[in-house]
Each structure stands twice: as C-alpha cells, then as structure tokens.
C-alpha cells in the first residue's frame, strides 16, 4: 500500500520541522541568531487516469483525471534575516548592526567568516577578537594606554589616551553585505560562510548607502519569536500524529485483507 510510504514521508518531514523549531527555541538567547524555517513541497504525482485523455469515441475528454500524490519532501530550510531587537549591554566592545551587513572575522583556515554576533573582546595584544579569539577584519588594535574606546555609527574606532585631550582614530570597521543572505552557509559558533548561492560579498563602511549602522554597547538579540515557534511546534506535532494514524489505518486495512480466506 502506497499510503504507508506516503505517511512515512509525512512523518519524516514533520520530524525535520520539529528539529528546525527546536533549534530555533534552543537559540532564542543566542546573540545575532537568525531563525530558520523548514519549507516543504509535494512529491511526484502518479497518473491513474490522465487529464485530457479521450473518454469516448465522440471525442469527450477527461476533465480532471485521477492523479495520486506520493507524499512530501523538504524543499529548503531558510534563514530569515529579519532584524533582531537590540539589547543594551554598555560593554564598549559589544557591537550591534542596525540594518544590513555582517562583521568579517578571519577563520583559522584563512577564510573569512561572517557574523552578526558582535560580542567582541580584546586579545592579549589589544586586537579586537570574537569570544573564540578570531580576529575581526579589518584588524583593530587598541593601544595599551587607552582610557576609553568609542566606536561611532560609521564604524570609526576612537581611543582617548591618558594625558591627551583629543581622541585618536585607531581604525575603521567594515561590513560585508550579500545579495542572497539566505544562501550563506552556517558553520556554528554564530559564523557563516560565503557560498555560490549567497553571491560575493560587497564590503563597505557602516552607515553608508546599503549598509547598516553600528551601535556600540548593544547586542543584537536573536530574532526568534517564541510564541510563533511554540504554535509551529504544536502544528508539527499534530501533523506528525495524524501521519502516524495513517500508518495505523493502512495497517488495519492490510490486516483485514489477511483475514480474508
């Protein structure tokens, strides 16, 4: 019976759906996290009676035909790049992007990783690094004797050095934007990689045309909406149950056949 396999595709799809939802809920407090959504598509159709086939010698044609679907498949798991809310932290090295763009960090492999999580710290050498110690690109080094650090909306980094009146600029942060943000490949640790689907990055200064602006002392919270995730979870669970009922029902039908003599 095909209905057994069809229900199995349905259960697999809902299982994936629950996995995506649980990952969203697990990351509801992850800085810079973007929620995912699983999207599904129907599978092939089998023609039992073809649409438009001739049904009589007089040339009448079948108006609808019998088309039987074979189940469901996952089409994509999208990242939804909606802006997350801003949490004020007052830590001078916490940066949030308001608008489009990603911070660039140098991965140990030499590749460039992209992230929205701007919880940066200083390394022993005074370099601006991520919590994993990856250096933010272009590199910013804060002098040892700096008393305050100010980063403005355009990403310019100023330090005030003890004993000097005027602040000095020690660097300029840059952002990268992508045409298809959903095409970036997540590799964990809040990092994303460029892929053929994302397109090549466009690098520019924050707050210029096409780039978001920088907020010092704030972090971008995840954009997971817990209420909608929970309602999605309920829908997914019920759908899973209904598909399992189909398997039970198909089983009952088959057992009634085996009782025939």
């Amino acid at each position, binding site marked *: 019976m095909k209905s057994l396999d069809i229900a199995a595709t349905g259960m697999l799809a809902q299982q994936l759906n629950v996995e995506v939802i649980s990952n969203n809920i697990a990351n509801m407090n992850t800085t810079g996290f973007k929620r995912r959504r699983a999207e599904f598509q129907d599978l092939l*159709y089998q023609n039992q009676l073809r649409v*438009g086939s001739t049904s009589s010698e007089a040339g009448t044609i079948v108006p*609808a035909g019998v088309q039987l679907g074979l189940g469901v498949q996952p089409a994509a798991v999208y990242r*939804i790049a909606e802006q997350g809310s801003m949490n004020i932290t007052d830590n001078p090295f916490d940066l949030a992007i308001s608008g489009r763009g990603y911070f660039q960090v140098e991965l140990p492999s030499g590749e460039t990783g992209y992230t929205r999580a701007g919880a940066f710290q200083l390394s022993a050498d005074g370099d601006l690094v991520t919590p994993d110690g990856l250096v933010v690109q272009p590199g910013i080094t804060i002098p040892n004797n700096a008393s305050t650090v100010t980063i403005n909306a355009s990403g310019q980094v100023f330090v005030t050095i003890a004993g000097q009146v005027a602040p000095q600029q020690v660097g300029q942060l840059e952002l990268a934007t992508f045409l*298809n943000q959903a095409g970036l490949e997540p590799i964990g640790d809040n990092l994303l990689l460029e892929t053929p689907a994302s*397109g090549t990055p466009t690098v520019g200064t924050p707050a210029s045309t096409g780039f978001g602006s920088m907020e010092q002392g704030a972090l971008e919270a995840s954009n997971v909406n817990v209420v909608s995730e929970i309602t999605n979870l309920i829908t997914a669970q019920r759908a899973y149950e*209904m598909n399992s009922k*189909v398997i039970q029902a198909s089983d009952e039908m088959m057992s009634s056949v085996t009782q025939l*003599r």
Partner: protein
Amino acid sequence: MENPGYIALSRQMVLRRQMDMVANNLANLTTPGFKGESMLFVEHLARTEPREKISFVRDIATIRDLKAGPMTETGSPFDLAIRGEGYFAIETPEGTRYTRAGGFTPDPDGRIVSAQGFALLDDGGAPITIPVDALSVAVARDGTISTDQGELGRVQVVRFDNQQALKRQANSLYDAAGQAALPVEQPDVQQGKLESSNVAGVVEMTRLVATVRSYEAAAKLANNEHERQRRAIDALATARS
C-alpha cells in the same frame, strides 16, 4: 454467482486509492500552497442478464479543493502569497509552470527564484532581477516589485478557466496542460506571507476512519460471500450423496 466478490473487490480497489490520497493530503499538511484533494466516485453499471444490471464503483477523478489556505506571516520580504484567484508563473527547463507556493529568494545574480532555483516571471514573461546594491524590496498589492532604486516590474499573476484541468507536478507546480494563462486584472499579492496548505487535519482524519471502516466492511462482505458459497457447495454436495 461470483459477482458479489468482484463488487467488493471494486470497492476495495478504489478505497485503497482513496487511502493513498488521504495519506498524501496529510503528508502535505504543512506544504505551502498545497491544495487538498478528494476522489470522485461513480457507479459503473454492468449488464449481467438482459433485464439485470449490477453496479460496481469506479474512481474517475481527483478533485482539487480550490479554497484558499490560511495566510501565515513569515517576515521574509521575498515570501509572496496571492489572496484570491491566481497563480505565479515560474520558468522551468520544461517550460512555464504555475504555482501558489510563494516562498522565493534572490539567487547570486539577484534573480528572484523558487526553492529549486526557477525564476519568477514578470508580466512580460521575463525573470525579475534585484540590483545588487538595492537596500529594500517592496511588493505592492498589485504585484509591482520596487526597490529604493525604482520599480523593477510587476509579478505575473494568471488565472485559468478550468483550474481542475491543471496537471499537478512535483514541487507544488502545475502544468497548464494546453490551457491559456489569462492575466488577473486586479491581483492581490501579499508580501511577507505564505499561503499554508488548505488541508484540514480533522476532516482528513474522519475520511481516514471512514475509509478504513468501509474497507473492512467490503472485506467482510467478501468473506460472507465466500462463506455463503462454501455452505451452498456443502449443502448441494450432501444432497447429491
């Protein structure tokens, strides 16, 4: 003499297909743009004797339920839903196909594409390309796509005289099967939303129960008929000896 068995068999055959259909509807409970189906049964009369007819059952068509699915807010600017009548046109290697599943994304070149990478067509039949440096994308109710750099074009929204005759394909696409695609004069395109599947779980569950019970009833009928024949043979055999 054997007819009741065959009648029960004809019933069981269509019920199995009905079961496959219910299973497909339930499997696609969360597929955007999916339309549930139901089966159309007809009586098939067969003449056995000059004045006698017996009726079998036959499934002649799957009827798509065309009512709109509920709109779900997604927050993604490239998710489009059509309120009311209409289909989006998609360019596939096999030709233009139509869909109500509006989960699109831009590809690396900026073209708006479906999850399989097929381009969404504008009312001139050309793909829609978002400029690389565009900041925001807005889709108006009438389907006009614009960015901060100006208008890009209007999404093609078409309708068909006979929607039931559209041929269903995988990936939520429909083949026009020779029908002309007519433009919808006043489309109502909603940005940031997706049309959910219109399958109602409860309805499908009741159909599921009904299908299983009818199947069992047909099996019971076949079984009873078998018993009757066996008893008849026994009775007649004893009468002889």
